[in-house]
């Protein structure tokens, strides 16, 4: 999709940014047990009224176990010519292991799903030894249109002509860290290039063993359309959208994705301009003009490129108040001061609840004064986050624990193998203490919620298990 097309579809009125509100849901099974996609559909159906039918979507992780080592690319295409253009582009850097239309049901009468584009998926192996030909081209694309069309020097493509050869496989449960940084950067560039330079092509997601399914319609109808009940994943997120200033288009729905990051988000970031300008200095250009994009880039910068822990990232994105910080013991106070000083422009200000996911990890975070709804719950190995408890109860009536996280307090769910942190079984005395710990201790801390989440319990309702996967 060219930049003009993107602009036109995403922000037809040229507002500062797209404004929307919505309902959110996320679940992770810490043991890695895969849950049928129906769980996300049913949860989102119960949040129907938080959207207006102009966008719904899901992200599933661990859904392609047979293809786990291939990069799964989900795209929307305007027509067959767009597909030809894309495939030509893909063949230059990748070996296409499998190309097919994303399976879907015909749009039923009365369904809210509107005018689906061509939806394809590709499973790709990076061709070893092939270096990015026109690496700069991507960079230039990034620069265009920024800030009233100024300055091609913004391009981040410079010096990014890395080979695609280094990404050879990886564990089934991949994490962002599994990509080597150069490869990850190339992949980001590649996706940005496609999204901005190829007419009629828009990438939904591009990472191993995960995929984004989204479109125009109520989320439950979109899930039905994409046959999510045919998939099983250890982690799902869902989103129902209520946009106020954008025409409905399939690419504009959530989740937003970058590498294996996906973001679903309810809120309006009043600090958008400050965040965007800061991220531009690190080579991220917010072409979609959405808060969600800014959050994804901020997460990528902090956690992938700058290697901050989830807690530290949360302390940046939803920083504790200075009043709170000033009361902490010296070390903690100093660390928080450093984080707030260095990353001041990344503070997300304004009302939001966001679910950020990447392979093996689910992070829920609300703004620091809690202006948007956010509920977390645990049942056995499963951690849930959602806009409303109703979305969780409908799929898991028997919950071990339900709580409303404090503003700025991250709720983190992690696959067992991945969790180095966490104090299983120990319930932190209070969220405030946990937040203080998050800044004082280093290896032994995680958010209160992770701590409060018992290590081993009998599974909850069995109905969402892998064995239920149809066909």
């Amino acid at each position: 999709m060219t930049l003009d097309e993107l602009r036109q579809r995403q922000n037809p009125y040229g507002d500062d940014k797209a404004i929307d509100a919505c309902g959110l849901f996320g679940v992770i099974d810490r043991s890695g047990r895969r849950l049928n996609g129906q769980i996300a559909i049913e949860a989102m159906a119960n949040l129907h009224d938080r959207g207006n039918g102009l966008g719904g979507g899901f992200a599933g992780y661990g859904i392609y176990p047979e293809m786990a080592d291939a990069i799964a690319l989900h795209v929307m295409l305007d027509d067959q010519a767009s597909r030809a253009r894309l495939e030509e582009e893909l063949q230059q850097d990748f070996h296409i292991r499998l190309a097919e239309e994303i399976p879907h049901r015909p749009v039923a009468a009365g369904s809210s799903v509107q005018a689906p584009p061509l939806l394809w998926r590709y499973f790709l192996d990076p061709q070893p030894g092939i270096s990015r030909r026109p690496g700069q081209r991507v960079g230039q694309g990034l620069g265009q249109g920024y800030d009233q069309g100024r300055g091609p020097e913004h391009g981040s493509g410079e010096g990014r002509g890395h080979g695609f050869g280094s990404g050879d496989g990886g564990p089934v449960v991949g994490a962002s860290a599994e990509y080597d940084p150069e490869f990850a950067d190339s992949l980001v560039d590649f996706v940005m290039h496609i999204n901005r330079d190829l007419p009629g092509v828009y990438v939904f997601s591009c990472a191993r063993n995960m995929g984004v399914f989204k479109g125009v319609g109520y989320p439950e109808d979109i899930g039905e359309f994409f046959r999510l009940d045919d998939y099983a994943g250890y982690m799902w997120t869902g989103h129902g959208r209520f946009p106020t200033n954008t025409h409905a288009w399939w690419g504009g729905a959530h989740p937003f994705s970058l590498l294996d990051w996906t973001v679903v988000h309810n809120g309006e970031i009043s600090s958008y301009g400050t965040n965007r300008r800061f991220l531009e200095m690190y080579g991220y250009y917010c072409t979609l003009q959405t808060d969600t994009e800014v959050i994804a880039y901020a997460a990528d910068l902090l956690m992938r490129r700058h290697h901050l822990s989830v807690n530290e990232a949360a302390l940046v994105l939803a920083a504790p108040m200075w009043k709170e910080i000033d009361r902490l013991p010296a070390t903690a106070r100093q660390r928080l001061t450093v984080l707030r000083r260095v990353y001041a422009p990344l503070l997300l200000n304004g009302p939001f609840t966001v679910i950020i996911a990447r392979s093996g990890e689910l992070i829920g975070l609300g703004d620091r004064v809690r202006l948007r709804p956010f509920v977390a719950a645990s049942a056995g190995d499963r951690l849930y986050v959602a806009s409303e408890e109703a979305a969780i109860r409908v799929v898991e009536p028997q919950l071990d624990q339900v709580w409303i996280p404090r503003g700025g307090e991250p709720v983190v769910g992690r696959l067992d193998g991945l969790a180095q942190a966490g104090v299983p079984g120990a319930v932190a005395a209070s969220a405030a203490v946990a937040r203080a710990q998050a800044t004082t201790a280093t290896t032994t801390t995680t958010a209160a919620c992770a701590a409060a989440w018992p290590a081993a319990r009998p599974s909850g309702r069995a109905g969402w298990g892998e064995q239920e996967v149809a066909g």
Partner: protein
Amino acid sequence: MGQARTHIEAQAVFGPLKPYLEPEFLVERDPDRCIQCGVCISQCSFGVHWFDVRRSQVRAEQERCVGCHRCAVFCPTGALTIRRNPSEYRPNANWRPEFVADLKRQAETGGVVLTGMGNDKPFRVYWDHLLLNASQVTNPSIDPLREPMELRTFLGARPDQVNPSASTSALADGATSHPVEGLPAAMVSVEDLPPALQLETPIMFSAMSYGAISFQAQLALFEAAQACGTYANTGEGGWPRPLRRFHDHVIVQVASGRFGVDADYLNEAAMVEIKIGQGAKPGIGGHLPGEKVKAPIARTRMIPEGTDALSPAPHHDIYSIEDLALLIYALKEATHYEKPVAVKVAAVHNVAAIASGIARAGADVIAIDGVRGGTGAAPKIIRDNVGIPIELALAAVDRRLREEKIRNRVSLVVAGGFRSSADVIKAIALGADAVYIGTAAFVAMGCTLCQKCYTGKCAWGITAADPALARRLNPDLAAERLINLVHAWSAEIKEMLGGMGINALESLRGNRDHLRAVGLEQWEMDVLGVKGAGQ
């Protein structure tokens, strides 16, 4: 040619020339109210009021009146009214009265016309053409009376990332899981950060030197800075010993005259500022006449009593950008890299490129003073015709530093005619980290912008050289007014922030989305990086 005389010789022969100017102000005394108490006589430092013994009546020699309103404010019965003289020349759009007056004055004196305070010409004030945003429906506004609202601001360089070395080593360990959890405790250490000032409000007091302002005025400014958790700048006139107790809230200046600069001066301060230029008189130096250099001023400036204190136009060790880098690092060495070093420049045409050079030269803070910045004394022709408005300079500098990806390396402080909290918050949205106020602080202490600061006769005791006049300013009371001003502005800033749904000032910094222009040309909106209202 042989008959040509110099101005001095002519004066010797003919005596002073008769002024062809009418009084600027009329001093009107209501006879029904006046009780002949003579307060006006003692209050007027320009010798307007006098007691006519023969008539047993207070009278006024109004041609001397500068319109400072001291007498009118202090008259116990409110008998005095100071008005501009309505007497008019034939209207002429080209030869406006101000030009006529300056011509006549120069014809009498042969000198450069001096003035005080900032540019008073009707150049466009961009603050008046920018409107702020507020939240409605799609996001909630925040009530500062109920919710915390943070104005805390840091001035100093910021690294682009928190301790990359520790992160790299964690990566190299090749953990199969996320490399992020097991980072060593050293990862985030406060010592790794360059030194910075911490402000509780984004408002600081501008450089105003002892000598240009009275001891009492400087004391009041320092006291207020301390009470408000912010900073005041000594200006270039040294730092009187008795005022060193405010060291945690004092920024010292190193200007071309190097007055009062020694190791203690640098090391006792919170920040060191190299003064290259000043908005009221870019490109020219300063001159404190010997008569004003009395013992305490001489001691503070470290020059002999009675000698002229001359600040050269350029620093004579800075003839290019690399020389500036040398001075920056000399000062950092002298202060053991424990203090941020700022560089103050006037807003001139190439200010964006200049600022970028200053950032690369190693400064931690760049202060930019716009064309409306005040002064104790400047040639009027310079004050009114040199420099550019701070709004445009700020927008251009902030953009350039971002484009060059070095915005994190420096903080931006802007100065030059900030009249209200709205000007301040708009500056923050344009990309400033903090502002300096000078004139506004003066007005709070009593100043009425009579522009006679250079005479040393300030009737309000602010820029007075005469100790008797200077004593008119009670430092504690003046400080109270300043503290009230800063609190009032801070409260207003919080209200406006809350209205935008923002609860930390840092989230408005450079957030031009929250500004809209009215009545500006497209090129102006392009420079400011803002859209028009309704766009």
